[in-house]
């Protein structure tokens, strides 16, 4: 039968051995982190962004690298997903992008601070996370249903519009789906609408988006091409 001193030896021996292995792996991890996180790209702006992220406890609602709270979206790939225009607009006025939806505190960031946060998110998005977050495999067929002849989506559409609107079964549900929108509205109307939604329809929830002329033209062309399917 196991004696008390043998049990004690098992505890102490195991702890020392495993701690030694853990320290060894920690040492090795620190050799690899600079390469995996692209530490050379840690500019002063990224560093300031990280400290803004911390000082305002963004992790208290959002997750980053999957760590944080589960009240607001995961932000690891937000730079790729939403782009700098959306991020800046959202940080400038959290109510503008999702009116009447889940609240985000307005931190009254200055433009330079917003640029720092955007730089921080851009850096985060490029860290090698062993494949996290995984691509949603079950949702892929819905997007493929569009077929090979569907016009390519402008980047600004995939980053901004899709946040609130769905197309071909994928996207937000804050605004109406945009399938067939080109059959319902002509290009001139869409152009007026995108320039200032409230001027066309007072009281609308749709925000006035920070678009330049080229993006506007691109979007109107794309939306006009979304015709109703023949039945």
């Amino acid at each position, binding site marked *: 039968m196991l004696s008390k001193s043998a049990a004690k030896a098992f505890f102490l021996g195991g702890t020392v051995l495993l701690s030694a292995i853990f320290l060894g792996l920690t040492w090795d991890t620190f050799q690899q982190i600079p390469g995996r996180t692209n530490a050379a790209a840690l500019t002063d702006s990224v560093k300031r962004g990280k400290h803004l992220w911390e000082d305002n406890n963004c992790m208290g609602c959002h997750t980053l690298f999957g760590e944080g709270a589960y009240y*607001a979206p995961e932000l690891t790939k937000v730079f790729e997903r939403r782009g700098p225009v959306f991020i800046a607009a959202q940080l400038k006025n959290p109510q503008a992008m999702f009116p009447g939806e889940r609240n985000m505190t307005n931190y009254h960031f200055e433009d330079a601070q917003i640029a720092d946060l955007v730089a921080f998110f851009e850096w985060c998005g490029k860290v090698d996370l062993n494949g996290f977050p995984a691509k949603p495999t079950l949702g892929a067929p819905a997007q493929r249903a569009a077929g090979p002849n569907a016009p390519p989506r402008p980047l600004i559409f995939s980053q901004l519009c899709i946040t609130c609107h769905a197309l071909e079964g994928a996207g937000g549900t804050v605004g109406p789906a945009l399938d067939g929108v080109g059959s319902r509205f002509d290009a001139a109307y869409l152009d007026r609408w995108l320039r200032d939604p409230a001027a066309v329809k007072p009281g609308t929830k749709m925000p006035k988006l920070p678009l330049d002329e080229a993006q506007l033209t691109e979007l109107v062309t794309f939306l006009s091409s979304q015709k109703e399917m023949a039945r």
Partner: protein
Amino acid sequence: MKFQSQKVAWGFFATCMLLFTLQIVYGFIMAFAHAGFDGLHQWIPFNTARASHTNLLVMWMLSGFMGAAYWIIPDETDRELAWPKLAWAQLIAFVVVGVTALIGFHFNWWEGRKFLEIPRPLDFLVVADVLLFIANIGWTVWKSPKKSTTSMVLFFGLLAAALLYLPGMIPTDNQTVDSFWRWWVVHLWVEGVWELIMGAILSYLLIKLTGVDREIIEKWLYVIVGFTFLSGILGTGHHYYYIGTPRYWLMVGGVFSALEPLSFLGMAIYAFAMAKKGGRTHPNRVALLWTVGCAFMSFVGAGFLGFAHTIPQVNMYTHGTLVTAMHGHMAFWGAYAMLILGIITYSMPLLTGRKLYEHVTAGFAFWVSNVGMVAMTLAFAVAGVTQVVLERRVGMDFLTVQKEISVHFIGLILAASLFTLGAAAFIWNFIRYGMPNAPVTGVAVAKE
């Protein structure tokens, strides 16, 4: 009670009751916000409620551990605490720092680092305060000729917990490094040295409540904490899957996390076996209920649910979702909250000289809070799994999914109400026990 200085434990336990109450309040604020009712957003935004909820938990766990140590160490070493007045001063300082941090959270004064939100200047005060506590119990053990295994494991567990707070204060500009050190604190606490503390307190309770021979209980204590470290140290790897650390952590973390339930299973079997083996029927049955319940619920919450969530292939999709909240709630409740409520239940009759453990509310508190917690875990599970499928697997938009699952938070609120009813019964009992004025019965042994 045996020694006058054990009285200070009551102060720490009363602090636990207060912090526990506040923790539940902030929990409700968050549950309502998730269900779509965020009327307090302007004054208590979600991140404030969240930081308050988790830090109140950490604070009342620490307060409970310190109270338990101030109760157990004089009993085990057969002498008064080295510096009883320092213990009271250290309690007051602890409460002041805690309250300052809590108020700070409401004015955007914090570090946005999950579980370690306490602002940096206060971190130093926490460390200083805990070191005073360590010195106090350490000196008490040192001065006594009696050095039981239970008191030594408890002391070294607490010392290691204090030292492991330090890596969390290493400054860095790299988010990956930041996360890496943060888990040194959080993981090596809750799945490492806190289990040492837990094992020691469980052993103490089992020795007192079952009457099984100390040598047998302490032998198994070594085996169990041995298994804890065998799996728990490298089990830290399950936090290093997807934060920018090397790929081998998927293997290391996966294998050793899979072993982690063993130590909890060991603890559960140990508690059940000792409770069964005990020939003596201790009149404080409800304290034994909390003790054995703690071992069982920690196996389910920390062991089993933790295991299910940390398999790398599963964690790829569940990481950063409400599934974590499901595991977290039952794990903390089972492993640490129930343990502290157990030691409180055991020591209160001895501290106050009143025997309220036969009262119907004592059993009511145990069963109702536990049924409530199981129901809460189920509500989180349904919400979490639905979120994983819709958002991570199907690719639906975050906000759409949140609306989809908000109904489960109504369920959570109902379950939490039941839990609160049980918790309220416990706190009501605590109040009815009154002040710790039981006569002192022990005679201190002198160092030869």
